[in-house]
């Protein structure tokens, strides 16, 4: 990656991933308000969320984080604003994950903003290195998910039974909680033979993620597979991973600057 191109790409990533984080946080405000009213005894501390706080305090921090993210996207007083925006984002989504469920849909978004907060914003600096770091963060999270399966279930995870059972249980929970079942879950649950290839494909996608760092074509190929994997998760479990589904999780591996209007690429 040439110097000017990598600076433009890093800038594009800051604007695009920052905008995503801003819109996502805004969309979560009503739910944050709701969980901020849960009894303190239900809290399970994680990340920066160590204590239950009054709802107005939680929402104030979330709103302040949105304002900071707006400045982050604009690049305004970046060296001060960006770390504060990242800190706010880690707090807000730690708080959301502190009530019985870790939201794995949010880790990578938060990590990308943290990395961008550390990256250079002016013309000086090794912009290409920071773009690669953002890509490496995407890759590492997928590899870790694959390793976790092998650590917890071993190679038996590949026979399909574990995946089928997980999908069955997940859909049952949703059915009992009135949230509906995923469109492909019921047709496939009665056909166990389908799950071995799906399990193998899942692990292949996760464990081969590092190939995306080896060049543009491999990146495009892996991103396509990983995106398809998330579509599969959606159709089998009704679990929406919005960050990868809209493609933003993969932008550091792709020519992200092409998504910016031409006048913003300079």
């Amino acid at each position, binding site marked *: 990656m040439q110097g000017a191109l990598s600076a433009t790409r890093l800038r594009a990533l800051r604007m695009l991933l920052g905008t995503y984080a801003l819109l996502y946080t805004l969309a979560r405000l009503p*739910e944050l308000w*709701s*969980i901020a009213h*849960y009894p303190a*005894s*239900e809290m399970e501390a*994680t*990340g920066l969320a160590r204590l239950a706080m009054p709802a107005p305090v939680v929402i104030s921090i979330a709103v302040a984080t949105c304002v900071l993210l707006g400045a982050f996207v604009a690049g305004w007083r970046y060296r001060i604003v960006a770390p504060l925006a990242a800190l706010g984002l880690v707090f807000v*989504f*730690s708080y959301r994950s*502190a*009530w*019985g*469920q*870790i*939201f*794995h849909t*949010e880790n990578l978004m938060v*990590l990308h903003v*943290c*990395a961008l907060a*550390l*990256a*250079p914003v002016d013309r000086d*600096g*090794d912009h290409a*290195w920071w773009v690669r*770091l953002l890509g490496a*963060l995407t890759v*590492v*999270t997928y590899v*870790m*998910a694959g*390793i*976790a*399966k092998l*650590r*917890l*279930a071993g190679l038996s*995870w590949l026979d399909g039974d*574990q*995946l089928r*059972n*997980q999908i*069955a*249980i*997940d*859909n*049952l*929970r*949703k*059915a*009992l*909680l*009135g*949230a509906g*079942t995923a469109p492909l879950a*019921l047709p496939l*649950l*009665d056909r166990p033979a389908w799950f071995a290839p799906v399990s193998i494909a899942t692990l292949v996608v996760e464990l081969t993620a590092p190939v995306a760092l080896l060049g543009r074509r491999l990146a495009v190929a892996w991103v396509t597979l990983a995106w398809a994997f998330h579509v599969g998760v959606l159709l089998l479990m009704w679990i929406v991973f919005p960050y990868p589904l809209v493609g933003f999780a993969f932008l550091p591996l792709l020519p992200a600057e092409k998504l910016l209007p031409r006048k913003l690429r300079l």
Partner: protein
Amino acid sequence: MKAAGVALLAAVALPLVRDPRHDAFPLSTYPMFAEPRTTRLTMDYALGETGSGERRTLSPRLVGTGEVMQAYVRLERAVHTGEAPALCAEIAARLHGTDIAWVRIVTGQHDAVDYLVRHIIGPEKERARCKVP
């Protein structure tokens, strides 16, 4: 600043050396769907009942959250801390003006494939029952 970037990447990978069951945010072990399990599920959940005794499932919003798993955890905690009647009343209050007459919080034991594919409902033990105001 590159050192900080390397430290961030290392921190993200660090959970590889801890028990994958000990998940956290934002430094996760990413244990989603990794834990071996059977299709048997014992679970606490809320049900609605119309005046004619028709069974209805209730959405997570009625439990006070838009998230399925948070509703699941709230119900489980309420049953295990003896607060099921209070949560039952909270849900019932949100159902005011609907055709649901009663709310029940139950602990059900189901086989997931039987329930979903063959529509076989397992045994359910009632933990709380309250009238919709």
